[in-house]
């Protein structure tokens, strides 16, 4: 169980840093077509922002903002988004994950949009899993109590 780290510097810096961290993560995901980055990298940065939040504000605060249910829902939504976008071309006469047949625009544009869609799915899943694993580890009570359930 991680308690909030009671230090005004850590708290203030985290509060200033977390929004920009999340913004840059979204940039990394959405700009993966033109620069290094993509779903995996952006998802990890997004997950790291939640880890920083746990370190600075304690597990309880993050638990209120993002429950385990939200974490698992987001992870499932990410995989579902990926496989769902992959399945759409099947109904339009293409192969699985063949975004070229989507009825949006010229073929390269369709493929770029398909890539963007699955990158968002990857980012969602990686972010949720990163935050979830850290929270699962952080919820261990190291100070005693054999089942690790905290008293709070």
């Amino acid at each position, binding site marked *: 169980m991680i308690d909030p780290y009671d230090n005004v510097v850590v708290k203030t810096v985290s509060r200033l840093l977390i929004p920009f961290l999340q913004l840059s993560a979204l940039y990394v995901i959405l700009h*993966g*077509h*033109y*620069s*290094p980055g*993509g*779903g995996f990298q952006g998802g990890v940065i997004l997950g790291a922002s939640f880890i920083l939040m746990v370190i600075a504000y304690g*597990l309880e605060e993050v*638990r209120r903002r993002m*429950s*385990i*249910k939200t*974490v*698992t829902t987001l*992870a*499932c939504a*990410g*995989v579902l988004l*990926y*496989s769902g976008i*992959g399945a759409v071309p099947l109904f339009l006469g293409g192969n*699985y*994950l063949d*975004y070229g047949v989507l009825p949006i625009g010229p*073929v*390269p*544009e369709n*493929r*770029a949009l*398909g*890539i963007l869609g*699955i*990158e968002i*799915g*990857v980012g969602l*899943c*990686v972010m*949720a*899993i990163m935050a*979830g*694993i850290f929270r*699962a*580890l952080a*919820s*261990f*009570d190291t100070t005693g109590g054999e*089942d*690790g*359930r*905290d008293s709070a």
Partner: protein
Amino acid sequence: MKAPGLLLALLTGGLLIYGEQDMPGWGDANSPASRHVSPRYIEKALEETGTANMVTAVLADYRGFDTLGEITVIFAAGLSCLLLLRRDSE
């Protein structure tokens, strides 16, 4: 039990080194991968996928199935971690 283990490790290592002799040299321009696969991606990726970043194009489009497998592995590993390690009752 130490001697057979060491022997087995040496044998496996020797076999791997022997098998490695047939691999193309590092960055060899005449290896099959550099002659057929890579030039195809470098020449056609932007034209076919509208994506300037070739790594993204290969990862998410040409090899989309591979990435689907990767994300499924991460998903399964994360869910297992949550099931096994979770201690807080929410």
